[in-house]
């Protein structure tokens, strides 16, 4: 291992991760707070540090399209976006996953309009939950660089696209010390991309045509899939991605000395009376709240969720089942309007039928960049514990730091 520690923003860390991964085609469209990532990549490419094609498209829809087509040809591709850019890509996210292409994208999380917000929450990527993409949420800039590199190995092993999500401004524009991995070691960690698609004049194929609901015989007498079989294969690919993600995380840890935990990470959780769960930088904030609460004698602990799709159901059950906590408090920067936060619904569903069923409160916080201080998280925890101690175990959705009425 070389010791190469640099002070980097999240976007710079991601750009270095892309460069180290030997990406061959980059295509992107500017949007705050993603912009400096793609600017850095154009500097690498124009400056000759990264031998890649940079396609300066006229929209995010086209950015993802370029990635889809170039990946089909057999090139390793990258794009990044935020907020409305991601929403504009929505159709192409489905197309990339349905095509089973190992596209890697950074989503620099930002709130969505109307009205406009350039500030951070996770509504953008959460709204893409059902597109067939693997979603990993990073908690700091070190994890960003490491996860981008891991994402290529995961995506190319299971033929599914990976979205590396990290919080806009909070991480994208904040500098932190980051260990930059050795280039040769990364090249060795990432075998060349072997496409499953065939675009060859000597073996002409028509890729992603119309497909019937039913199965159909080809000219050689093989009964080929219908639409539903291919959807099942995508679902299976994401389910089977879990052991791959775990292996990749461990292998990365062995080579580079950092294992970010695969699906989940924990902070002072073993003896916790109250569990604070979340994704991304809000979970990092929760670790500081935990320290504050522990000083006050409240045994808090954090369950950080790194992998959102495929969802680590068994691992969450196991992590929570091992602790006799009084309450499980979810802190999340998204809302499924008319119900509750999406992460909370998923965690509840994961715990359905399990022996351990703590009362669950869902904290909707930090929407559109509303500041969330560790002390405010700690106050929320104390209020929830009071409710639970008074014998009220009903589920609650709490809008933290929001004037209601």
């Amino acid at each position, binding site marked *: 291992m070389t010791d190469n520690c640099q002070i980097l923003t999240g976007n710079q860390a991601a750009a270095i991760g892309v460069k180290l991964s030997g990406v061959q085609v980059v295509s992107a469209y500017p949007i705050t707070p993603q912009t400096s990532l793609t600017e850095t990549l154009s500097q690498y490419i124009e400056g000759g540090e990264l031998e890649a094609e940079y396609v300066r498209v006229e929209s995010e829809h086209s950015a993802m399209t370029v990635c889809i087509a170039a990946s089909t040809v057999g090139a390793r591709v990258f794009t990044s976006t935020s907020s409305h850019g991601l929403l504009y890509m929505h159709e192409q996210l489905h197309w990339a996953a349905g095509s089973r292409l190992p596209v890697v994208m950074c989503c620099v999380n930002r709130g969505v309009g109307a009205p406009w917000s350039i500030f951070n929450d996770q509504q953008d990527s959460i709204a893409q939950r059902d597109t067939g993409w693997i979603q990993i949420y990073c908690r700091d800039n070190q994890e960003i660089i490491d996860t981008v590199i891991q994402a290529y190995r995961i995506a190319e092993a299971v033929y599914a696209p990976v979205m590396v999500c990290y919080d806009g401004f909070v991480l994208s524009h904040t500098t932190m010390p980051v260990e930059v991995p050795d280039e040769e070691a990364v090249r060795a960690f990432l075998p060349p991309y072997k496409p499953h*698609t065939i675009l060859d004049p000597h073996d002409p194929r028509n890729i992603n045509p119309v497909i019937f609901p039913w199965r159909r015989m080809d000219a050689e007498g093989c*009964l080929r899939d219908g639409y539903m079989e291919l959807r099942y294969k995508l679902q299976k*690919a994401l389910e089977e991605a879990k052991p791959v993600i775990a292996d990749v995380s461990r292998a990365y840890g062995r080579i580079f000395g950092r294992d970010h935990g695969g699906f989940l990470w924990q902070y002072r959780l073993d003896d916790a009376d109250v569990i604070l769960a979340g994704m991304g930088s809000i979970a990092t904030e929760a670790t500081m709240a935990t320290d504050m609460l522990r000083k006050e004698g409240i045994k808090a602990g954090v369950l950080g969720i790194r992998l959102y799709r495929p969802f680590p159901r068994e691992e969450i059950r196991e992590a929570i089942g091992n602790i006799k906590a009084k309450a499980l408090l979810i802190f999340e920067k998204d809302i499924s309007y008319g119900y509750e936060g999406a992460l909370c619904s998923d965690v509840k569903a994961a715990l359905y039928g399990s022996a351990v069923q703590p009362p669950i409160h869902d904290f909707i916080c930090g929407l559109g960049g509303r500041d969330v201080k560790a002390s405010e998280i700690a106050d929320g925890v104390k209020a929830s514990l009071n409710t639970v101690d008074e014998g009220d175990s009903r589920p609650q959705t709490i809008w933290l730091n929001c004037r209601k009425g």
Partner: protein
Amino acid sequence: MEDKDHHISAMCKPAPGEAGKTGDWRDVRPVINHEKCTPFIKKKPSCFLCWLYCPEGVIRDTIPVQIDLDYCKGCGICAEECPVGAITMVSEGKHDG
């Protein structure tokens, strides 16, 4: 018959008859009167406008000219474009139902 598709995405191979034997679509069939057909009379490659204008590519520019009735959809362009009236569209005599 193999019953497992190893593809993970939809990727077609070329084959004739993707839409089946499209000759079934015809109400009328082209019939060539070779005695009138220019290349047949001249005994050398000539005219072949039926080959040129067939949208399906099912006419062969051979002597005599041949039409693949398995796939000819019966549009009638060849008869319409034949400058000497050598092709007639004749009812298939089939009735619906």
